[in-house]
């Protein structure tokens, strides 16, 4: 089946896969070929995909949707980070920054300056 992971600003991955595992509001869901059409709200968390060539990747998503129809799986989210593209050190630094910001009064990120 065809799987596409689509973030708001770009398509992160698309290709053939055998299994997609993730978590919806109603609980964990595993999708294989010929799954019944479903449209579901995803929890923030991870998406786990096994590709046809025995590959495997995971992605972190901040919630979103999954739609399955006719062997076409689309995972939509605002932001996503895919395992083979992300940099552990970078992610850790961002997390630290976010935590520091949150504890420092929780001001919203300042994008009002050029």
């Amino acid at each position: 089946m065809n799987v596409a992971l689509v973030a708001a600003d770009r398509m992160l991955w698309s290709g053939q896969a055998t299994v997609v595992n993730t978590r919806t509001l109603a609980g964990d869901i595993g999708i294989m070929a010929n799954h019944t059409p479903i449209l579901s709200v995803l929890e923030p968390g991870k998406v786990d995909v096994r590709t046809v060539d025995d590959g495997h990747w995971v992605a972190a998503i901040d919630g979103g949707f999954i739609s399955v129809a006719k062997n076409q799986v689309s995972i939509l989210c605002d932001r996503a980070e895919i395992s083979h593209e992300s940099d552990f050190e970078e992610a850790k630094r961002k997390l630290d920054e976010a935590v520091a910001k949150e504890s420092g009064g929780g001001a919203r990120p300042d994008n009002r300056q050029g």
Partner: protein
Amino acid sequence: MAVSLREYRARIRSVESTKKITRAMELIAASRIIKAQQRAQAAAPYARELTRAVSAVATYSNVEHPLTTEPQESNRAAILVVTSDRGLAGAYSSSAVKEAEQLAEKLRGEGKEVDLYVSGRKGVAYYSFRRREIQDSWTGHSDQPTYEVAREMGEALIDAFIAGTDAQRAERGERGEGGGGTQRPPVQEVHMVYTRFRSMLVQEPTAVRLLPLEIVESEERPTEDDVLPLFEFEPGPAEVLDALLPKYVQSRVYFALLQAAASELAARQRAMKSATDNAEELIKKYTRIANQARQAGITQEISEIVGGVNALADANAANE
């Protein structure tokens, strides 16, 4: 004569440096347009999938949602105006503002008050100079908008709209669904004015109604064997719609911002190209005048020398 020659040369130099600047801005804008178009293309799959999902829910369930319900009466509208942060883009910002003013005028004619939400420093400057109240503004991203900004804008507009429909329901004696605690004045409709990028040469300011939502079906009508499959909704159609529609609004705002960014760059490139052309024209003109002045100086010197020599010769002839 010599003084004015020096003046002309100084003027030529100054126009030349202006030309260098405008040429550089033209080239930068040209290269950024391509990036802006790529960004718009990269965002297309998300918008397409989202539209598909929304129309699937709309087709297979008849769930009522506040974001799609026409309000009974409307006495306050919000307009989101998308302008640029920087100038030197020709009439780009002013034509967007003009379009917004026309829309505002029309809405006022229908007896609605108009709230302004502005994106871009130029728009903010326009309205604050005229001491018009701005509900909210976002600046600093106009030539490369991020989805985060679109999300903030979408949330602000949805907040105002939900507050508006809640207030109406409360009047009709129904129970509002929370949504309180916002300071934004409640509105019953939301419009958006941005500049559509039709081609490198044509960008037109457009006004669209954002809320209440009209779900735009995908452009190609589904053929017989391509009808939307019968979806299962999890947890339920209402919840799915609840989560989908705000994203749909945000994605439309994002799309508008991307279009506006491409338009801004195209407008800037054109403005800078004509500025460069004008600078070239000026340089040509001043060079001609300077050459004339120089030639006039030389001619005068020669005639002075010849006159002097003649006078000497005459004097010598008289003495002999």
